[in-house]
């Protein structure tokens, strides 16, 4: 197996459950126990109500493309062969937005508003990251 040379994310201070969830093929979100708002950020307090109490819950894994770009610049050597590659912001059904890639279609097929669903990519033995693919419904 060739060595994976792209950045391999490590859990931050509070995001271990997200990365553990990805390994189980579950897209985990933070949900405020006070007001119920969802978030996905390395941030212990709810921006809506300032409560520090939250739980990790399994999200639907569904969302839509909020915006997307095609990267033509080589700013990291390990991405050289991928150029041009897409980076998208996916708006999840629960509200939070996350940066990811859209797989399973050509860059020219991307459009804002396209419904997508999560897929999981085991980039190394220890790390799985969520990506998204178009869904038709």
């Amino acid at each position, binding site marked *: 197996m060739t060595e994976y040379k*792209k*950045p391999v994310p490590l859990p931050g*201070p509070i995001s271990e459950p997200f990365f553990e969830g990805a390994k189980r093929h579950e897209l985990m979100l933070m949900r405020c126990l006070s007001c119920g708002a969802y978030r996905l950020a390395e941030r212990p307090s709810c*921006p809506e109500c300032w409560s520090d109490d939250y739980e990790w819950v399994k999200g639907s894994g569904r969302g839509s493309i909020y915006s997307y*770009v095609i990267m033509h610049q080589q700013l990291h050597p390990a991405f050289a062969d991928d150029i041009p590659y897409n980076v998208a912001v996916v708006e999840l059904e629960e*509200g939070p937005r996350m940066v990811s890639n859209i797989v399973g279609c050509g860059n020219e097929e991307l459009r804002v508003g396209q419904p997508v669903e999560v897929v999981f990519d085991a980039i190394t033995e220890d790390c799985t990251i969520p990506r998204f693919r178009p869904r038709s419904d």
Partner: protein
Amino acid sequence: MGRIYGRDVVYFAKEAVRLAIEDAGLQREDIDGLLINPGTTPLGGFAGLALQGALGLGDLRFVNSMNMGGATAISMVQFAAMAVVHGLANYVVCVFADAPLREGRGGSAAYGGWAPALQPRGLSELYLAYGLFGVNAPYALAARRHMDLYGTTNDHFGAIAVAERQWAAMNPLAQEREPITMEDYHNSRWIVEPLHLYDCCLVSNGGVAVIVTTAERARALRQPPVYILGMGQGHRGVLSRPDWDADTVTGAAISKEIAFRMAGITLNDIDICELYDCYTYTVLVSIEDYGFCEKGEGGPYVADGKLGPGGTLPTNTGGGMLSGYYMWGMTPLSEAVIQARGQGGERQVPKRDVVLVGGNGGILEHHCTLVLSPHPS
């Protein structure tokens, strides 16, 4: 400013301050306030307040190092104005300097935003795993969303790039002065689609300084004073909230409100615009948020060439940061001062009673506004 090599950032800061003092007809000893906007260059002495020592400025009464990206220059002037009005200092020098360019390396290497040793940690850095690097991409995401919501096109962005290059052709200090056509714009390579090369600002080494004092003191100095008629700030909280729309709505709408009220002006009074143009898109969205046209109408609004020489809304009259020089918020601010003084030479706009200056910082997160004029009210 420009592609100047072999000089460090302290040199650029010193030269800018020296020239500003000389221009004003002051002595170094007159300066009793210093506000610093460090750029990106991680050099000892300019990371912040140590610049005071490096410049040999002693016994100051008002000092700070400030940074909210491209909005900082205007913010520095605002704080300096409040300081001199309240007697905290008499002459506050505000300085920006940066030297990210290295000889033989492209501009993208200077601002690429990738450190090879970096291991992303947690959700806040997860984007690196997906290949989102540098500052071009987040602006491109915003531009794409605007295009999708409102039908904005690359022709619209191109009109801004072409107009600014027309201005740059008349600015001896501009880095890029060769005229470009819309065809050149479309032929310029993709950087991060939907942004072409000509949608993105230059990278420059250099420094700019301005001196802020009271109106009464300014009248006794060498240069014609430029008065601050109004000022304001607008900051949109960037959090993961469903109602967050910072991509297509900036803080300019908030910033403008208080600045225009203070100045007692409306949009119709504005003769010249100097808007932050890290990207063509930033100009377009700022024009919308200042209210020159309806939200979403920025594309058609700029497409007829009204921003260029001879147009009805002369904008970024030195070529801006797209074609002139990239000194963050000091680029629009310094050109506004030049125009307000009537010292624009070949590119001078005849009517210059009210000049609008906008600064944008972060990824469209922070906005600061100044309304300047050669007349005290």
